[in-house]
């Protein structure tokens, strides 16, 4: 599998972005872009080819959920794999995200293994289609 895919990490907490970046590195992914909220992330998505989005839910200005909806609603953007990071699997949140077209969700805290597994599975499914 291509480990050189460009992954966008969206989180308002800088340390959290770093944590995810480190975990990705452990999984072999090093081509990483960061954004501090949905607004910035959306701009990044519009301006360059992003292969995978890992986004937090809770952010100022534009939440992860709003970002997901905006990405899915935008006709110009290809369907990009979207992994939502949530704190607890709050049923309402997860179901909302699933209905909005998220590819999977992951619950904090998670290990590098679990993260890499999720990414791999999602990418494989995209490749199969």
């Amino acid at each position, binding site marked *: 599998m291509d480990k050189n895919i460009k992954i966008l990490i969206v989180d308002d907490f800088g*340390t959290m972005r770093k944590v995810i970046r480190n975990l990705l590195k452990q999984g072999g992914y090093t081509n990483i872009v960061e954004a501090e909220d949905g607004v910035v992330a959306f701009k990044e998505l519009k301006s360059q080819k992003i292969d995978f989005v890992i986004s937090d839910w809770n952010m100022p200005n534009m939440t992860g959920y709003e970002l997901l909806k905006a990405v899915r609603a935008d006709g110009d953007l290809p369907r990009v794999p979207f992994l939502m990071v949530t704190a*607890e*699997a709050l049923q309402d949140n997860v179901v909302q995200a699933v209905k909005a077209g998220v590819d999977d969700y992951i*619950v904090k*805290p998670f290990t590098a293994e679990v993260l890499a597994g999720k990414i791999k599975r999602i990418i494989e499914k995209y490749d199969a289609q």
Partner: protein
Amino acid sequence: MKYDNVINLINDMASNFMVLDGQKVDVPAAGKLLNQLEEVIKEADAQEIKPLKRVATGINSLLEKIVLNAVEQKEGGRAFGEGLIRMQEISSSVKNKGSYDEDIEEYMQSLAELTGSTLEEEEKPGAENDACKVENESPPETGGREEKFEVQDESLLKDFITEALEYIDEIEVNILNLEQDPENTEYVNAIFRPFHSIKGVAGFLDLKEIRDLAHILEDLLDRVRSNELPVNPTLIDIILDGADVLKEMITSLKEILDGERDVPAVRDISKLRHRIDTVDQRIDSEDKAKKLGTILVEDGVITEEALEDSLKIAEGPPRQKVGEALIKGGKATPKQVTGALRKQAAQATNADTIRVDVSKLDDLIDMIGELVITQAMVRQNPVVQGSSDEKLGRHVSQLASITSELQRTSTSLRMVPIKQTFQRMSRLVRDLTRSSRKIATVEVVGEDTEVDRNMIEEIYNPLVHMVRNSVDHGIGTPEERVKSGKPEAGLIQLKAYHKGGNIVIEITDDGMGLNKKKILKRAVEKGLMKESDILSDNELYKLLFLPGFSTAERVTEISGRGVGMDVVKQAVEKLRGKIEVSSTEGKGSTFATFFPLTMAIIDGMIVRVGKEKYIIPATAIRQLLRPLRESYSNVVGKGEMLNVMNKLLPLVRLHEVFDVKPDSENPWDALVVVVEAENRSKCLLVDEVIGKEEVVIKGLGAGLRNIEGVSGGAIAGDGNIALILDPGSLFALSET
């Protein structure tokens, strides 16, 4: 064929369904199914196909549980498939026969068991690591600690500490904002979010203590967000205390990293936890409307003993209402009781308000200000004045009274109680005493006193410095206090009341009072006076407000911030306020600040010098008089003086200060306004006193902002511009 779209939808779902066959849930496919189910439910509801709606709703929640890994997949998938088949049956049967008669109870029962009971067997061995934690709060232990530690390098920890501390600062600011504006959900979110983020990262870094506390606080905020809890002082206190403990935890982590400490300080958060757990009851009891008896006691109608007696009688037998018992017992008249009842009702309907954007309010008040001016211009127009039309005259005066009423009402719109400012002060005292090892209780009087919302923000800073001052220099340490026969805990009283057009805020401490000898000594050292000078107490205390004058013997954490009383005084005067100090040695000191109720309007006396008009703030005026020739003297070294009631006061010739040509140069031909500022009085020489008027203050714009002697401008009734005089700086100007 109205069922066709439902049938198509269900058929489509059935063909998509295989996505659930795999080892893991196909999330996007499940999302599509959920959306389709939502549509089916809507349709079934609209067309009143009850069994279809029930099955669809049932498998909808089943699928939600499957997505959350809360239902075992194979079994869940089978039940979901069966549901789809049932739905197909129902829809085609309804289409062909108009009804569906099969029994679905058994299937519904099995669905309920599946979605309801599987929750218990959540943590199955071998369950996926990120398995659902719908209710469970502990982090997944599977996947192991070691792996989590891989994430934890020191630079990451350091980043976390820095960022988390910044977040807590942000939280504190927003808590204070929330206290001022409890309805604003933006602030709730802005407090919730950082707690949430801190919790998330702490989970990765395996900082269990921090994560748990952040989690509790986040939950609390979440309940506020969902309107489960109201924002009130109890809640604010808990959040503040929680943020404090969290900060301590993170700071101690930092100290460990920096090698300043090797063992983490043990912190007991059980008390805080308990307070949070019981927050509902606390808030309930606090929000309840005051009891009738309490109102009567507070109003001084009855004594507490009388109330207790009547309460006993009211309990019966025969049982009766408290009010009844009071009236029958002759403790209160029916009128007093109904009055209290009405008061109680008013308290209960306190929520009968609407929220309005402050900027809209400001605009409204500005516009009304303009209206007042325009109205005055119309009234004073020569055509109107000279008109003999009685009707016009009547209408114009009616217009005048309506506009002034409108203006009064509009300014009252922006009035809010000083309560929240006082609460912030109390909090400040708590924090300050903690860091300076002093003990103090805060007593608040008159917290319902109202003041312009725009003023509240302005007066906060000077008040903060004065409260700091009281804690730092006022109350004294517990040892000092005990030595002089006082209780260990100092008392700081915050008191607000209206006086004239001002709100007066007094900050009183029961410390040692100002040490006059020390002030004197210091003043001589600084070369401000000679030892032989005799000063009144007032003049002596005024020295405290001179730049660089401080009687603090040592610089403490609090007072060492470089803000002296001179800055406070400047801030207060900028708001057209003043400070008065009174003190009794050994008993304590009071700093009283006077602020205008609003920044928008000033009650002023319009005076004329030559062709120019000036407005003197009414609060500063002591007297108006036409001086006698004999009372005038020109004292060598002191300049021109007037004898006003046996006191020699300096004469300020306004025409000289502002360089205009006056009608008369001689004081005895003109008029004199005695004006007081900064504890001294001077006589302003003017040609004519036109009258008293409430004027709307207009800023002079950036270019003219710092003109000495003038604090702003106003449009007078005749449409001309008049400058508003600032007595304090005018005095200074006249002395140069």
